[in-house]
């Protein structure tokens, strides 16, 4: 059983814990400049959207070369986004998206 990635987990802890603890322990994050606070609030949506887009829009070949990809995953993602925006419930968006992909692949459509 490998343990090499435990080191990565420790580093992820090292970079995450201060964000959780500093305002609780010492710093007053509300004293940051307004622009910095506004930027921080926008990081979450930007990074999460970037992760989602990269996952469905880029595929890599065996050599690691990226290429643009369009497929049923786009439709599934749009379905999930629409349902979550409507019902504010991630599970309600996720399950139909998975079902759509599974059915499309089983039917040979994707």
């Amino acid at each position, binding site marked *: *059983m*490998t*343990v090499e*990635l*435990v080191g*990565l*987990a*420790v580093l*992820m802890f090292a*970079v995450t*814990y201060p964000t*959780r603890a500093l*305002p*609780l*322990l010492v710093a007053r*994050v*509300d004293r940051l400049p*307004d*622009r910095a*606070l*506004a*930027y*921080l*609030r*926008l*990081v*979450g*949506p*930007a*990074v*999460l*959207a*970037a*992760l*989602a*887009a*990269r*996952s*469905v*829009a*880029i595929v*890599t070949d065996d050599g690691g070369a*990226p290429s643009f990809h369009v497929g049923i995953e786009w439709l*599934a*993602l749009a379905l999930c*986004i629409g349902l*979550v*925006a409507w019902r*504010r*419930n*991630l*599970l*309600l*968006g*996720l399950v139909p998206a*998975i079902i*759509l*992909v*599974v059915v499309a*692949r089983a039917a040979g459509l994707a």
Partner: protein
Amino acid sequence: MTGPTMSDPTVSEPSSDAALLRSSRRRLAYDGLGVVLAALGFGLVYGLSARDAGFSLVEASAMSILAFGGAAQFAAVQLVAGGLPWAGIVLLTGFLNARHLLYSAALAPWLSDRPKAVRAGLAHLLTDEAFALSLAHFRRIGRGDVPGYLIAGILLTFIPWNVATVVGVLLAGGIPNPEAYGLDIVFPATMAGLAVGLVTGSRELVAAVVGAIVAVGVGLAWDPSGGIIVGGLIGPFAGLVVPSRTPPETWPESPVALGRVARSQATRRSERSEP
């Protein structure tokens, strides 16, 4: 919205307050059932994904225990599988989890009378879900409550997430073709859904859209994993160009949540009970 308001936490607790406390803790546990289900579901998928990416049980569990952040963990699994150097993964983790600064700052006034060592321990349990549930609880009772926070952070989030991680890793060997079950769409759909939960105005929307477009563009032109970081950095700058309709000093009323219970009901109840 303004920062949290509260009664004086140093005031002694009369019996009616004890009843209110018990009632609010029950409500906290009830509201948290959706969070538990979500944590179990996504923890399971994380475990499956981690195993599929080559993580051992120890490695996957270490990440769930130490990093304890769903989005960052899903991202790390994908980026490890994609061969991104650790530095890039750690940088992305920092960006993804930067929002915790805001949650922590919002909770700080409620817990400021607790010993520093206690606050240091509580900090590790701070997630989107724990924040949503405990802030609503604090507002209902008008003060901070460490046991209530522990219910939200450990019982309703940490334990389900870690148990499901282990189960997911152990089950993964029995699923030969995860794509046939649509498991490959779980990660992008989860990230997109979480992003939607954070979009509360045009600024967030612009940041998300620009972040996505830049990530794909840079990913195609340079490196897919690097595109995520560049998109995550540039997207917020684009969002800042959009005029804000809310005062910059306000704190997030409710974080992204994995279930409607955590996001809407708990917050609405807390708002109704706020003095």
